[in-house]
């Protein structure tokens, strides 16, 4: 049954997934060519020195692309379900509603992780190729909250979409904006070194709210 649900979700979002994967690839390539150009114009010592002295995050272009990726994937996955209360069809399937919801969200999260791992791998290669190892480690710590922020954005979008009550939906939007802004609050050179993993825990906690919205949806649609 899970395979069939994956099939349904894939049919729904394959094109937007492909588009987002291409967009992410182009942004990473843009970062690569910018860096390549910088190293052509200036000597390696100068570039590395400048990066260290001014804490330049040369990969910052990817920051809001990750948020955008989570947002758009969520919209394209959930809008068809909410439009004309099509989620009723899904909830009528002979599977427990929470399990269905978990499986649907898992598909979205797995697709996001696929894109983000691809980004992370390309950025790592770029970092290792051009810069000392400390830049690579700093890049991982700096970008981790951005990747997790993309997933958290997706999770909040699902929560907001399936919540049937407009008051609760508005509160969810405000809470979501507050929480997601934390993930993108600082872009400096490993600023989250001691707290990066807390964002993962925070996202895990936020995921549980989806089930509350699913419960509200089931209890109160008309």
């Amino acid at each position, binding site marked *: 049954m899970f395979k069939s649900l994956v099939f349904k979700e894939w049919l729904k979002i394959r094109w937007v997934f492909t588009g987002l994967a291409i967009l992410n690839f182009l942004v990473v390539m843009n970062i690569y060519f910018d860096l390549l150009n910088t190293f052509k114009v200036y000597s390696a010592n100068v570039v590395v020195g400048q990066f260290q002295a001014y804490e330049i995050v040369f990969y910052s272009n990817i920051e809001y692309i990750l948020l955008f990726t989570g947002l758009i994937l969520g919209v394209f996955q959930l809008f068809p379900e909410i439009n004309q209360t099509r989620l*009723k*069809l899904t909830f009528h399937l002979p599977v427990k509603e929470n399990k269905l919801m978990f499986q649907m969200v898992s598909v979205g999260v797995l697709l996001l992780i696929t894109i983000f791992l691809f980004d992370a791998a390309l950025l790592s290669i770029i970092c290792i190729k051009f810069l000392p190892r400390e830049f690579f480690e700093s890049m991982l710590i700096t970008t981790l909250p951005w990747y997790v922020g993309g997933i958290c954005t997706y999770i909040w979008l699902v929560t907001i979409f399936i919540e049937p009550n407009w008051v609760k939906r508005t509160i969810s939007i405000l809470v979501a904006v507050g929480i997601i802004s934390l993930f993108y609050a600082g872009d400096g050179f490993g600023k989250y070194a001691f707290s990066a993993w807390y964002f993962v825990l925070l996202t895990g906690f936020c995921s549980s709210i989806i089930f509350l919205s699913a419960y509200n949806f089931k209890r109160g649609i008309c």
Partner: protein
Amino acid sequence: MGNVVEIKNLTHYYGKKLVFENLSFNIREGSIFGLLGKNGTGKTTTINILNGFLRPKSGKCLMFGEDSYNLSPTTKARVGFLIEGHIQYSYMNIKQIEKFYSAFYPRWKKEPYYELMSKLAVTEDQKLSKMSCGQRSQVALGLILAQDPDLLILDDYSMGLDAGYRRLFIDYLTEYAKAENKTIFITSHIIQDLENFLDECVILDYRSVLCTMPIKDFLANFKQFRFESSIPDLKLEKDDVIKNSEVIKNKAAIYTFAKKEEVESHLVSKGINFTNLHQEAMSLEDAFIGITGKY
């Protein structure tokens, strides 16, 4: 035969607005049961409660003996559900949607689905979003038939369908229900289509139930009497005998479960003079309008 659905004293509000109060009826196994009522009387609300998509304020709703709000997957697999407007996954094509659903239902039979699809001028890779409303209704019906459920819940199957597709829908359902002893619970705005289809019905009014009975009894016992009166501005109030009435100038129509003699004596007791009191034959739609009123 037992009851597939049992609704007991169901009451529901939206905010402070009462939708219905103490709604009770049972649906027998193998019967075709109609939920009739004008817009806003709570038909879709009842169906949402029955499918577990709405928690009622009070009362009980049992499907195959289970509380409808907490249906087990096994029971859900026994229920085919047509959402108002024939809603389906419109981004799938004919083949994909059959493949998707088949994984969930152990009794899945694809033959009735593809038999129905072969009658439509569509290709297997045509998306539902590119189909007409009538074609989508046949896809939705075909999927329900392939699921081979014991109970079919059809919420306003006639929405957006022309006469041909409505007839096709009912013909298929009739053949299927009778051959396989299926139970059907149906709502529709096109009452005339249901006349020879339903076994029993419940007729809802705003906030209350007007009647619950076998359709044959309803058609046999609910009558329309017409008469003329010389009373200017004649007004007929609803009571135990007069369920509804219409007055245009000096001509009146009474809708009632009473016999002609009872109507005569009732009018006399109310001081209403009348001439030419006679019964007029009614179709199910006439009777429905008679009992619910035109407004």
